[in-house]
């Protein structure tokens, strides 16, 4: 009896030893992500976006979602499903956005939200990629004759509640010993209306949102941006829940693929020719011509090629939303690629 038992144990051990070398190999190739599995099973990506702000995310007259953040949701869906339309958008206010993500109601939050320390630590969120660099900007009526932010002493500024903007103004007031009054709104529509009606002397938000706000004013030309920004650089980007590294990686590399497209000169219009002709090994690996890069992310190897074909590279999407084509006319500045003095870069595809 005893002999049989030890024999069986030995047999099992031998079997396990035989099988052992196989399992690490599969683990290496198999991407384990709860979120990705859920998304695939559902057949749809649920993307948390802004409730409506030109440039980032808004619904056009036909009810279609447009904007830079929307392009990212579409790119992510394209990478997973091969179709950029398999996305459900959930408009989230600045108040609830992180709770909605934490509770798992959305898969990813791409909602002009600033990457901060507290959000990364206390809120337990990952900050995979920055898709828009900006800084808190003030917009005032030209007729007020204000040239610098410091001249706003005693003025009232409209802004959205539950944001870093409030803290920045409080800090700025303290540092300069002045008093800029605030009026806090829940949604941008009412805040824009109040600014336009003259309830406040100005409006403040990140540079992109202020440009969007100006485009909704009755007479956009009456408004000017103050050259000085406060609160330092605001990196806006995507958020994911902590504890799902594979999903965070995918969100991160979708961004890098879009930037890399621009860096390598691959755009919506030339992606087919480039796929056939491109020699740069980094670009070839990104486009799935060499290596197994898609598989390592949990998608197929054509993912980046599809994103560039269907959605385009970062620069194209910027132009279509914040640039001249989008009607906001916001210069690229920090959002240009590093080759042109901006901060958009891609790690190397090796």
């Amino acid at each position: 009896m005893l002999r049989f038992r030890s024999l069986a144990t030995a047999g099992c051990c031998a079997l396990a030893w035989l099988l052992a070398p196989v399992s690490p190999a599969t683990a290496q190739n198999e991407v384990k992500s709860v979120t990705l599995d859920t998304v695939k099973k559902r057949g749809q990506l649920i993307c948390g976006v802004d409730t409506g702000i030109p440039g980032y995310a808004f619904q056009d007259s036909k009810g279609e979602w447009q904007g830079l953040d929307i392009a990212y949701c579409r790119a992510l869906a394209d990478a997973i499903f091969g179709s950029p339309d398999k996305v459900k958008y959930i408009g989230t206010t600045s108040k609830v956005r992180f709770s909605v993500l934490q509770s798992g109601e959305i898969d990813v939050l791409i909602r002009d939200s600033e990457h901060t320390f507290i959000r990364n630590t206390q809120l337990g969120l990952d900050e995979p990629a920055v898709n828009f660099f900006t800084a808190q900007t003030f917009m005032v009526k030209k007729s007020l004759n204000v040239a610098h932010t410091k001249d706003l002493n005693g003025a009232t500024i409209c802004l959205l509640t539950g944001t870093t903007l409030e803290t920045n103004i409080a800090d700025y007031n303290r540092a300069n010993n002045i008093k800029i009054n605030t009026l806090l709104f829940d949604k941008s529509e009412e805040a824009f209306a109040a600014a336009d009606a003259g309830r406040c002397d100005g409006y403040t938000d990140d540079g992109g949102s202020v440009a969007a706000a100006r485009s909704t004013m009755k007479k956009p030309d009456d408004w000017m941006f103050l050259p000085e920004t406060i609160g330092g650089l605001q990196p806006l980007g995507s958020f994911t829940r902590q504890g799902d590294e594979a999903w965070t990686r995918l969100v991160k590399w979708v961004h890098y693929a879009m930037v890399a497209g621009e860096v390598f000169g691959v755009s919506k219009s030339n992606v087919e020719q480039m796929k056939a002709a491109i020699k740069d090994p980094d670009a070839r690996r990104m486009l799935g011509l060499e290596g197994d890069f898609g598989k390592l992310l949990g998608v197929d190897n054509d993912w980046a090629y599809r994103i560039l074909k269907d959605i385009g590279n970062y620069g194209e999407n910027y132009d279509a939303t914040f640039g001249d084509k989008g009607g906001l006319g916001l210069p690229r500045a920090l959002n240009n690629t590093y080759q042109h003095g901006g901060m958009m870069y891609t790690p190397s595809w090796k």
Partner: protein
Amino acid sequence: MVRRPSPRARAAQWLLLAIVVAVAWYLGSQAAANIARRHATFGFVFLFENTNFDIPFRLIPWSVGDTYGRALLVCVLNTLLVAAMSIVAATLLGLLVGVMRLSANWLVRNIALGFIELVRNTPQLVQIIFWYVAVLQTLPGPRQSITLPAGTLLNVRGIYLPSFAPGGGADVLWPLALAVLLATPFVWRLRWRGLPLGSRSLLVSLLSVLLFAGGIDHIDYPALRGFNIAGGIQVVPELVALWAGLTIYAAAFIAEIVRAAILSVHKGQREAALSLGLKPRQVLSKIILPQALRVMIPPMTSQYLNIIKSSSLGAAVAYPELFQIFAGTVLQQTARELETMFLLMAIFLAINLATSALMNWYNHRVALVER
């Protein structure tokens, strides 16, 4: 004989209790697990930490850097202010419209009917935003303020009333004036040589006014200075819009309560009063309304509770009440979601329970004494 519940009924009650406890335990453990999963803690110590945001409208002094606890007090007062203003105004307006609704005059009756139907059948949030965006924001800017009588200014930033600047003796005289004013109703009931003082007690009110006037140094008129109007008291449009939205919406419901209550008084009462020679106004104020009041109070209580709860709609028009600041700014800055929501619910619950206790006490007082 006291009837005892049957064993089966008892078992059912114990079962129900067990289910309730189980559900509560499940929800509690879920919350605890969620907190643990997010590496968060649960506690209210943050109320003693310092804030880094401004509250645009407040009744008591506030500055950036005060504690979250102080912010809570500021917000509770803001909520109570708009709720109290709305309850008083909605009661008066509702009473008026309710009586108008029963008027013999066709026009008066139908104006009241139109008002009620229009207000009752549109969403309250839409009404509040309507008052804010479509009415108050069409007013001119601060540099083109409309001048109203007595140095009052009106513009898109609100109504600016002249205020009384306190003089040297105001610290003593003003509280004294308030005390004297509050004493007036008691003096009214006092008797002098067997006769009630009655309207002669208004002399006491006059004394209060004189005391108040004695404390005034000068009148502070609002005037344009820099970006804004300075001086005087500013009544911000956010407060006015929320007040109007809450008042008018509730008034429509109160009007119907008043109408139903008046109709519930038997018509014989009215006929008897008229045949005794009372004038129609006296019939209303002395015979009908006192009897209708008894019927009115319980449904009125729930209207008042609705007003208090709906004050959280102020977040839509930038009125810094409890919900806007605590579920918005504080929640974001401290990341204490459970705590802030718990606080909000507890405070609203406390305010509403207190209101309803007060109303029940009043109801008990005016109720028919049954023998």
